[in-house]
């Protein structure tokens, strides 16, 4: 059974070569990639099934002793994130990605391999390697966008991302110097033995948290995100927005509680305060910056800064409820934001609507899109009965239980910040009076600037329907996840209890 875990990483990694081998046969490349992604979903489901039946599974590649071998581990939480990676990758590949290229397909699989690796690895150094594999794939994917702005955004993303990863690596170095081991389980034991307040340990935590903070895009380390997401193609921005920061957030949760443990946060109160302050600053700054955005995808990117602020605050609270909330928020935000980026990206690609003002009166042309977008936005705000509400509820519950009144007020008040920007977008879509038709007329006015205009209106309608249905499905998922959030929490419970 433990070979499953290795397959989760190796199948997409080896598979990433296939699109390059088949040469210029784009259809074949697309078929192969799709097939591998479907297999990946099957593997993720299998892992979840095994974990559900037997509890956490772990394995060491190549049968080496666990201190030196490449360790892999999966528990209930891991399997949820594995499923997220696999399902998102296949869904966006099938629905949003229309113009496959073999290089793009290869990078897509590489990203999946890297992110799955980050999720299942049991070793802090391998986490770095997988982080960089996914990072490299992400930089290159951003650069597949048309024109120089995409290349520039990708370059900036690369600089900041690599600095983050290198800081993380330096943190790992400190850990290794302090303990002589790199496996998460080994570190867990060794750190408590040498004492959490050793300067080396504290320094390593700071470096690792800052390094991952870059990938998570906490304020003020978020600068790469808006440009990268706004210039990359629809499918890429959807995939990245769903997964990259989410998996980094999950890594932070795992390292904080699986390696450093609650004992570290208790012995070094400054670390906890640091997390809380960093998260709180992100919430406020993200909320304020979001309000000032005119480009819809930049707006969505800044809203992530706010959301991940909440997640980091929840990690800092370190109560069972708050950590459960952090995990639920990670998942719900990923799904909601991915769906929004995907559908908004399709609209930008096909109709050249990019700013909030372009969405004026959209409801007339796309009622389903508008309604679905409102539901998904409601999850971002945290209105019941969506998954966003459930996550926020758990975090707030954790804050109140910890008697951190400021944090509780922040979590509850962040809803208001979100309402402001979401309200603006929804009001524009529903009650704005467009000066001209929003969609449909967009293509003819700009006069053949896009490849779709030659195909006439049919393709337009098709892609609008596609975007609307996708968003509606995502809306359904966030509501369903909200209504099943208790079961999700129950599924996570043993792991969270093990951490705390």
């Amino acid at each position: 059974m433990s070979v499953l875990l290795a397959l989760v990483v190796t199948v997409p990694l080896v598979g990433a070569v296939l699109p390059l081998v088949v040469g210029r046969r784009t259809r074949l490349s697309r078929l192969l990639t799709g097939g591998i992604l479907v297999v990946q979903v099957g593997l993720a489901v299998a892992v979840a099934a095994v974990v559900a039946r037997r509890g956490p599974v772990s394995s060491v590649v190549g049968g080496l002793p666990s201190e030196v071998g490449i360790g892999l581990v999966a528990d209930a939480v891991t399997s949820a994130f594995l499923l997220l990676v696999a399902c998102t990758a296949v869904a966006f590949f099938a629905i949003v990605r229309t113009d496959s290229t073999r290089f793009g397909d290869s990078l897509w699989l590489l990203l999946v391999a890297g992110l799955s690796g980050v999720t299942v690895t049991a070793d802090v150094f391998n986490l770095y390697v997988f982080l960089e594999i996914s990072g490299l794939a992400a930089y290159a994917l951003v650069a597949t966008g048309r024109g120089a702005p995409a290349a520039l955004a990708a370059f900036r993303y690369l600089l900041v991302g690599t600095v983050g990863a290198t800081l993380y690596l330096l943190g790992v170095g400190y850990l290794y110097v302090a303990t002589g081991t790199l496996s998460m389980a080994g570190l867990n034991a060794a750190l408590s033995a040498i004492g959490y307040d050793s300067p080396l340990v504290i320094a390593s935590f700071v470096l690792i948290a800052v390094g991952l903070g870059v990938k998570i895009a906490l304020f003020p380390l978020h600068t790469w995100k808006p440009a990268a997401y706004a210039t990359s193609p629809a499918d890429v921005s959807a995939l990245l927005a769903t997964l990259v920061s989410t998996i980094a957030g999950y890594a932070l949760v795992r390292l904080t509680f699986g390696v450093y443990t609650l004992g570290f946060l208790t012995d070094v109160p400054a670390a906890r305060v640091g997390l809380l302050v960093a998260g709180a600053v992100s919430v406020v700054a993200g909320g304020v910056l979001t309000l000032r955005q005119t480009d819809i995808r930049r707006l969505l990117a800044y809203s992530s800064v706010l959301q991940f602020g909440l997640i980091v605050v929840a990690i800092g609270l370190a109560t069972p409820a708050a950590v459960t909330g952090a995990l639920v928020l990670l998942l719900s935000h990923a799904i909601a934001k991915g769906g929004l980026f995907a559908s908004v990206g399709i609209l930008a690609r096909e109709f050249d609507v990019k700013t909030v003002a372009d969405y004026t009166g959209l409801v007339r042309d796309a009622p389903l899109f508008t309604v679905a977008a409102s539901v998904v936005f409601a999850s971002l705000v945290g209105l019941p009965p969506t998954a966003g509400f459930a996550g926020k509820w758990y975090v707030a519950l954790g804050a109140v239980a910890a008697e951190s009144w400021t944090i509780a007020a922040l979590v509850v008040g962040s809803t208001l910040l979100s309402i402001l920007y979401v309200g603006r977008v929804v009001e524009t879509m529903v009650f704005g009076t467009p000066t001209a038709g929003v969609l449909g007329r967009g293509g003819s006015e700009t006069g053949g600037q896009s490849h779709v205009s030659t195909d006439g209106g049919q393709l337009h309608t098709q892609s609008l329907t596609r975007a609307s249905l996708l968003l509606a499905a995502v809306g359904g998922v966030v509501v369903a996840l909200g209504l099943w959030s208790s079961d999700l929490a129950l599924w996570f419970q043993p792991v969270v209890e093990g951490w705390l």
Partner: protein
Amino acid sequence: MSDLVMVFSSRVAYVAFALLVGIGVFVLVDSDNLLKKVVGLNLFQTGVFLFFITSAFRRDGSAPLLSGPGPVVNPLPHVLILTAIVVGVSVTAVALALLVRVYDEYETLDESEVKEAQQS
């Protein structure tokens, strides 16, 4: 004063590490030239690699060969950094490829000039 000299002489690798990281970050932040930023990034990474390698050092240790005589230096950091170097090279390659595209479009690698070109 003599303490400081002691530190510098006995921990020369750490000093080099700190210098490399410091210079790297400085170039990364300060330089307006995008290509120099890549150089800064490389210096920064190299500094961190050096830190790892230093941690493997053992006085009078020899290369970790199964047939060789003990004591040996810790082989694990070497292996790790070998991987990290590969990662670093790949990152540099991607960065340079991106810069080629940027240069093709803007005909400059100066950050402020690129910004100007982007706005116009």
